[in-house]
């Protein structure tokens, strides 16, 4: 701990006391101070994220995680296929039918189907490969069964179940008809009487039952979604750097079959660096001179004079140039037109690939003023080298829309996206310096009622 005796008799004694005691005074910082500095630095690094600096391990881990998630989603979606009889018949069954030897699981479906077929009666059954989702291939089974003929007493009773007949032209059949649909029929021991592109004929104990493939039912629907997309944009100007942008999205989607057409509006805050060069004058130390305060004759040696000296710093006004970078904010309106294709869908999850152009219009600019650090500096001139933003840009957007259905009409989504800008943001940049961005959208989607045609 520094300390000092109070110097008496001088006009500036207070100043001297404090200067001598506290001039080199040190205080040990608390442990939290470095944590705070370190945390702030990390946050700054994240906000100025540069893709070229990402360690290879992070890329590999991220890619592996995405592949695993997609694999799990695919597995999840593939293990819930079912056969469903048209609800119009008031007979609904479900069972697994994913492999060839699952007769136990599929037999109830067949049992129900058989019960539909009664003598002198026509019935219709829809069989779908999945859980009644719109746009899936469907079949209508129609049976025209004559009334049972009287059986002679001495006649041998016909076999109730003949051994499963081999399929007619099995390789062709497997191409035209999903084996998952044919397997239950075979497993139940029904005889396949005929098979062509559109009709399966089955020999049942009650007669011939025909199953007809029909065109997929076209289902259309609308949805609206709202969300926010933080994105990292990469600029390739005189130096490469990244900035964090934020978009608020409101979109309408039209879904038909597996396709989606989407448009809407987005409000975005886009950031970049302002560049200034400031010329200023500040008073800086340029050296020192030695001033003689007093002198006296050396009592031991009368020929020697002893000088008391003091080093006095010399200041002068010096001219400096400082390059200053500021953070500017621009407000944009974006109008996207995206086309989508559904990659898969389950009861709860769906994944769509979306792509299309988007047009952005500059509607607001907020430029930050340059800042000079030194309080005693006098600013002579400020040169603004910030490039002017153009009014309109366009880009191509590619995204994956992963949605989780919370309820029948409400879902929440996660949407990683990549955008490539075809023209430059500013008038000073070349086309080759056009930036790209990577973002992750989060939001909710409301599904309106379906329109079936």
């Amino acid at each position, binding site marked *: 701990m520094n300390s000092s005796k109070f110097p008496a008799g001088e006009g500036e004694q207070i*100043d001297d006391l404090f200067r001598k005691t506290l001039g080199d005074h*040190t205080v040990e910082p608390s442990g939290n101070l470095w944590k705070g500095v370190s945390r702030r630095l990390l946050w700054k690094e994240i906000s100025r994220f540069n893709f070229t600096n990402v360690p290879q391990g992070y890329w590999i881990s991220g890619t592996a995680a995405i592949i695993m998630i997609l694999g799990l989603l695919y597995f999840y979606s593939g293990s819930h296929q079912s056969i469903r009889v048209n609800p119009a018949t008031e007979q609904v069954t479900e069972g697994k039918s994913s492999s060839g030897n699952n007769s136990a699981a599929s037999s109830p479906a067949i049992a129900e189907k058989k019960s539909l077929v009664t003598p002198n009666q026509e019935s219709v059954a829809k069989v779908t490969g999945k859980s009644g989702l719109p746009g899936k291939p469907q079949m209508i089974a129609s049976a025209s069964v004559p009334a049972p003929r009287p059986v002679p007493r001495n006649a041998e009773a016909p076999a109730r179940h003949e051994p499963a007949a081999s399929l007619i032209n099995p390789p062709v059949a497997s191409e035209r008809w999903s084996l998952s649909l044919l397997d239950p029929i075979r497993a139940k021991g029904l005889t396949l009487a005929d098979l062509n592109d559109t009709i399966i004929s089955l020999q049942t104990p009650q007669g011939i039952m025909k199953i007809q493939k029909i065109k997929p039912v076209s289902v259309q629907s609308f949805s609206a979604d709202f969300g926010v997309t933080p994105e990292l944009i990469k600029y390739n100007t005189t130096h490469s750097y990244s900035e964090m942008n934020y978009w608020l999205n409101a979109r309408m989607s039209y879904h038909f079959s597996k396709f989606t057409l989407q448009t809407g509006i987005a409000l975005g805050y886009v950031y970049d660096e302002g560049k200034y060069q400031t010329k200023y004058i500040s008073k800086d130390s340029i050296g020192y001179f030695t001033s003689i305060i007093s002198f006296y004759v050396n009592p031991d040696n009368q020929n020697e004079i002893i000088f008391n000296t003091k080093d006095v710093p010399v200041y002068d006004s010096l001219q400096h140039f400082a390059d200053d970078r500021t953070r500017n904010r621009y407000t944009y309106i974006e109008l996207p037109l995206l086309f989508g294709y559904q990659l898969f869908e389950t009861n709860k999850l769906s994944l769509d690939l979306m792509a299309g152009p988007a047009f952005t219009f500059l509607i607001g600019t907020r430029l930050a003023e340059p800042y000079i*650090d030194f309080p*005693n500096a006098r600013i002579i001139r400020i040169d603004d080298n910030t490039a002017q933003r153009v009014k309109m840009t366009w880009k191509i957007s590619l995204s994956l829309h992963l949605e989780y259905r919370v309820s029948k009409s409400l879902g929440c989504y996660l949407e990683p996206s990549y955008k490539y800008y075809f023209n430059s943001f500013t008038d000073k940049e070349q086309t080759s310096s056009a930036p790209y961005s990577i973002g992750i959208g989060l939001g909710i989607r409301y599904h309106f009622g379906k329109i079936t045609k």
Partner: protein
Amino acid sequence: MIVEDSILEGCIAGKRSAQSQLYKKCASTMLGVCMRYAGNRDEAEDIVQEGFIKVFQRISSFRREGSFEGWIKRIMINQALNHYRKNRKVPFTSVIEEIDETEIVDLEESEPMDVIPADMLLGMIQKLPEGYKMVFNLYVFEEFSHKEIAESLNVSESTSKTQLLKARRLLRKKIIDYRQSKKSTKIHE
């Protein structure tokens, strides 16, 4: 305070280990500086934290023409002044408080002082009104002229002179109070 070139190069490259080393070398000195400008330790640490962020962001602009200590100290002082400007709630001139001249005892007539601990003197500065504190620090420790102080704090030169005078008087009173309290303690002992 000697900072090796390797540390500076590491900081310019953004290496966290180099930043940590630089921090360890400079933090206690810089906190000592900022304690004079702040009202308490927490406030001083806030200033130091902001100051170090700026140091690491702008370290590439350090031209190595002068001492690094002078450069980093200048950033810290500037940060302290920014902090003061940002948090100044009342006009600068209104913080001047009247001191009863009869209370002032001429130190020249007083007996030589005992040792005054640095922490005690630091506390005296910290308790000064904001305006006094800024002017006193800039004048005494940074050796600013009144003209420079006036430009830095956006006040007139006469205001700067008045503030310094009032600060000195207030500090003198605090020193004498301290001395008297210590004297009476000794008598009781």
